């Protein structure tokens, strides 16, 4: 899966700010600092998706689709950090 293009990153960045405002979360970052974090996160996923896939044991590595693996990653990360 290719990295997000600029339009998608801008949309994600805007949605993240709207969601934080609507849930009354203080980000304590400027727009440009948050945008840099969005870019860095997407870049990190692009650089590390292969090692994540390689870390999955068989048969999950072969059976799960890319979307399934993304959901799995989000579920585990979300549980670890109390997001879900």
């Amino acid at each position, binding site marked *: 899966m290719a990295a997000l293009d600029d339009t998608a990153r801008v949309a994600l960045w805007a949605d993240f700010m709207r969601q934080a405002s609507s849930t009354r979360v*203080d980000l304590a970052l400027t727009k440009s600092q948050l*945008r840099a974090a969005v870019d860095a996160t997407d870049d990190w996923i692009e650089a590390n998706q292969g090692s994540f896939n390689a870390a999955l044991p068989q048969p999950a590595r072969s059976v799960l689709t890319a979307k399934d693996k993304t959901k799995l990653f989000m579920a585990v990360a979300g549980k670890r950090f109390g997001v879900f």
Partner: protein
Amino acid sequence: MATGDTLVVFTPASNLSGDFQYVAYTSGDTEPTVGDTIWGDTSNETAVLEYYEQQSGTWGGSDSAGFMIFSNPSDAGGWSSGENWTANTTTPSNDGTFTSVPVNCAATFDTANNVLVLDFDATVNEVALFQGVMPDHYDGGGLTITLGVTSTTATGDMSWFIFLKSLTDDVDNLTNVGTDPSGLKVFAAPNTNIAFDAASVAGEVAYGTITFSNGADMDSIAAGELFFLLLMRDAQDGTADDMAADAELVFIKVAET
């Protein structure tokens, strides 16, 4: 009348739900004029140009780029994404190109701890419209307009624009009659506060001002005259406006300078 006395106070509840739209443009080669009717040459949609700002390039170089604020769209959902636009004619001459679909940009109602506020987005310019009558005791001192704004963050600052429009007795056109909206009275050029700091603690209300000189600077609003105030957060300018959260307007106070 004394200097500093309050003339009019607007709260979020005073806001009129305007049919304003925001869009960025590029490849501009013919400079429009505020009040022009902008026509989309794919969609056949039209709207009145209330404000535009060139942010890079030049009209002569055919690479002007910036943004526009519209009112009175002929069909609010009718624009085509990335279409060419032309001013004051439906004969396509490609004065420029939208970078996306014009989007509705009215600030939205919200509450902050049960207090009614108007939310202005952090990325898309949004506007709120208020109408009032200048009190008869206005004595020609000019205006100092105070905004009270809160937010969920204490980091960064905001950029605010205020546009004023007077409606003189039996002179100015309030509504668009017929199919041509170009006869509408439009707003005068805005005055700004492009370094309006967020409050030092999230949830506090920061007060900041924008001033207008008496006369043309405030569209010559006279005592006893109907006027409109359009407030815009210039959120697309991520340098001047770097606060990564909604700006929540609590009040506007219009006082004599």
